[in-house]
């Protein structure tokens, strides 16, 4: 299973309506942070699990599911979290 599949699978517990993952790693090749091999990703996720939660709480929900992948497998993760109806 590649990293993107792993991320998608972990996030299924949030039962996302949308889970869009972009692998931006190619754009970061050669910079110091990429030297360790970890990927750069942008995640847009829409989930009812975020209803009534502030931004910090939403990001923590996602981080908690991916914690052991950071920072070595995932070097950087840009996050956009929405409850249904917010976008």
């Amino acid at each position, binding site marked *: 299973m590649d990293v993107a599949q792993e991320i998608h699978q972990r996030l299924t517990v949030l039962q996302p309506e949308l889970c869009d993952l972009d692998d931006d790693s190619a754009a970061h090749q050669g910079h*110091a*942070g990429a030297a360790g091999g970890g990927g750069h990703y942008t995640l847009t996720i829409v989930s009812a699990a975020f209803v009534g939660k502030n*931004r*910090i709480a939403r*990001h*923590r929900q996602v*981080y908690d599911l991916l*914690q052991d992948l*950071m*920072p070595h497998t995932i070097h*950087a*993760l*840009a*996050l*956009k979290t929405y409850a249904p109806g917010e976008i």
Partner: protein
Amino acid sequence: MSQNIHDVIRQQVTENPIVLYMKGSAQFPQCGFSARAVQILKACEAKSVMTVDVLQDPAIRQGIKEFSNWPTIPQLYIKGEFIGGSDIMTEMFQSGELQPLVAAAS
């Protein structure tokens, strides 16, 4: 050891109104996300920002992640309160929420 680092961080964020933990300096950020965080604070006309380069101190680099329960850098504190990372700063800047927080702390 770890407790001491948390005390150092607690002191930094309570004694300084705006603290940005980042990679590199405000003049020479070493990471795109940190660079964006600096730009946003400039756009908010933030004054008296203390930046802490976590690349200069492995204990702070690990300690701030534990202290905030947040796995990524940069991290912004205003008046001792954890505001978020660069994505949250971007959203709060675009929605106009961040500017008054920064103004009240500058």
